[in-house]
Structures are given as structure tokens and as C-alpha cells.
């Protein structure tokens, strides 16, 4: 078996990746701020918009994440079998971990909200189902899972960004930043043909 070749990523994968990166960073930064807002009541409604937005973005990220996992699996099936180096295996592990933590983070956040008794209207358009009656114990459980998976996700992101910076400083080619040797048109063409 030969060494695993580097795979050029399609335009859609790259766009999804950067949307996901920007959204996750926004969710982290905005959540640290919004949790300092006064607790909700009939009088104090400061948390209403930030929390709805937080949930909307989080639920949208589940869809983006599943799409990216599907794309990744499809790429994997197409790639000829090859032996990966130790670093490639670690990078793959970090990717898988990031996806799993992101999914766990978003799902636990949604479930926590669902058990808190607050309704979720996706992008102020579609009422999402409430899974059960208000349940404080389950709300706290999923809230804790949400918190810890988020810290785990931040750690996985640090590793991911650290690796990207390492490769950038080392002058290696990075698949998220394709060079002119493969134009975006070629990548887009492949995108279209693969759908």
C-alpha cells in the first residue's frame, strides 16, 4: 500500500468549513457574554434574542456538521486504500473528535433547552417539537453535558488550529487553502459532478 495522498477539498466543503468555524467561534464568544445578562423574567427580557439566536445557529450547525460528515465519508470511500502516517491518523482522530463533540454540544444544548420549558422556534419560523414537560433534573443534566462538550470542543479546535498554524509556518500545503494549481472552478466542477 502507498502513503495516503493529500486530497484537495471541494469549494462547498471549504465554504461549509469556514461557515462552521465562524459560527462556532461566535457561539463561544457570544455565550460568554449572554450568560452575564440578567436572569429572564416578565420584566427582564435581555436574554430572549441572544438565546434564540444561539439555539438557531446551534441547530443549523447540526445540519452543516452532518453534511460535512457525509462529504468526508464519501471522500474516504473514493480514496484509494493507503497507509496513513502517524500524524495523518492523529489529524483524522482530531477531525472525528471535533465533529462528535460539535454534534454532542449542539444536541445537548437543544435537549437542555427543550427540558427547560422554553420553546424553540427555528429562525423565528418553525416551532421545533418539545420532547417532554419541563424537567429540571434533565435540564441540568443536559446543560452540564453541553458545558463540558463545549470545553472539549474548544480544546479540539485549539489542536486543529495549532496544527494548521504549524503546517502554515512549516510551508506545507494545506487542503483548506488550495493553491492556484487547482482553481476553484475545477473544485466547483467536481462538486457539481459529484452531486
Amino acid at each position, binding site marked *: 500500500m502507498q502513503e495516503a495522498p493529500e486530497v484537495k477539498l471541494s469549494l462547498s466543503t471549504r465554504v461549509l468549513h469556514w461557515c462552521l468555524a*465562524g459560527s462556532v467561534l*461566535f457561539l463561544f*464568544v*457570544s455565550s460568554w457574554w449572554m450568560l452575564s445578562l440578567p436572569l429572564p423574567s416578565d420584566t*427582564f427580557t435581555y436574554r430572549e434574542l441572544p438565546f434564540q439566536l444561539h439555539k438557531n445557529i446551534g441547530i443549523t450547525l447540526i445540519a452543516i456538521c452532518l453534511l460535512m460528515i457525509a462529504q468526508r465519508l464519501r471522500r474516504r470511500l473514493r480514496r484509494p486504500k493507503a497507509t496513513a502516517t502517524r500524524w495523518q491518523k492523529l489529524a483524522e482522530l482530531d477531525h472525528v473528535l471535533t465533529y462528535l463533540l460539535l454534534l454532542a454540544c449542539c444536541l445537548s444544548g437543544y435537549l437542555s433547552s427543550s427540558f427547560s420549558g422554553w420553546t424553540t422556534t427555528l429562525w423565528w419560523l418553525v416551532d421545533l417539537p418539545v420532547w417532554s414537560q419541563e424537567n429540571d433534573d434533565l435540564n441540568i443534566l443536559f446543560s452540564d453535558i453541553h458545558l463540558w462538550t463545549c470545553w472539549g470542543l474548544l480544546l479540539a479546535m485549539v489542536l486543529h488550529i495549532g496544527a494548521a498554524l504549524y503546517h502554515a509556518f512549516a510551508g506545507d500545503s494545506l487542503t483548506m487553502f488550495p*493553491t492556484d494549481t487547482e482553481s476553484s472552478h475545477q473544485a466547483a466542477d467536481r462538486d457539481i459532478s459529484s452531486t
Partner: protein
Amino acid sequence: MEPSPHSSSSSWLGVLMVLFALLLLAAQGTELLKQTVLAPGSSAVLGIPADCRQDELEEEGLSLEECQLMVSVVRASLSSAPDWFRSLQWALALSACLAAALATAVGVGIAGGRARLNRLAAPTFALLLLLDVIAFVAAVNTGPLLRAQYLWPSLLWFFIHLSFFCALLTRRPGLENT
């Protein structure tokens, strides 16, 4: 791994640009949300006491004092802001979000060695520098509570953008040959 065909300095500069542009996008997106939510004349300013229910305090892991101070923090921010501050800050945050999104695209292009996007890089960072200066001057003209919140981040972002701007200016002639 094989070295990429374009210069490695372009690559790391582009990657750093993307990283900081995304962080700026997150920070300014939050600022936009903040200025949307914290409206003058809202309940915190009216002196209404905080509603701190015991079950909510337990859920959030808060003390009663912390819960009461959350209202005071909002009140402090609003009290320290002049009338013009909210609209200016909202416009600045929106402009910075758009500029950060552009800087992300430009950074991706530079990391990939795409000459087309190089021309946009220096003007994008010049715009970001201008926004930092306006934000800094605006913060100087607010009360001490807002100055404490805004001056240092504005200065920090100014120097980050200045570093990128200078790096872009010094590498321009070489890139035009690529």
C-alpha cells in the same frame, strides 16, 4: 509533505489572517448583538430590582448577589453611554463584521497564493484600522465604565491589524510577480 508552490510566508500570513479575521467576526458579531439587546430606557435602567428565583439560581449556579449584580452591570453600561454611542457602535460592529468576512476570504486566497485577492488585502486591513481608530476615539468619549470595557480591546485589535497591514505592504512587490 511537499512544500507548496507559492512562498511559505504567503501561506502563514494568509492562515493568520483567517484566524484573526474569524476571531474578529465572533467578537464584533457579539458586539452587534450586545448593542441590539441593551437598549436605553430598558428595565435595568428603570431601577426595577432583579428577579432572582431560587430554582433559577440553582440551575445557573449563581449566588443571589451575582444575580442582582447582573442587572447592575447592564445598568452601568447603559448609564455610561452617551446618546450617540449605541447607534455608532452598532454601525461600527456591522462594518467590522463585513470587513472581517472580507478579510477571511482574502486570507484564504493569500494562503492559497491567489494573486487576484492580494489587491484587496491592504485596503481591507486599512478599513479595519480605520474602524479601530473610530472605535477607540468613540470609547475615549464615553464614561469611565465603558472606557474600561472598550479601550483596551480597541487598542489590541488596532495593533493586530497594523501588524497585518505592514506585513501586507512589505510583501506586495514580490507577490505581483507570482
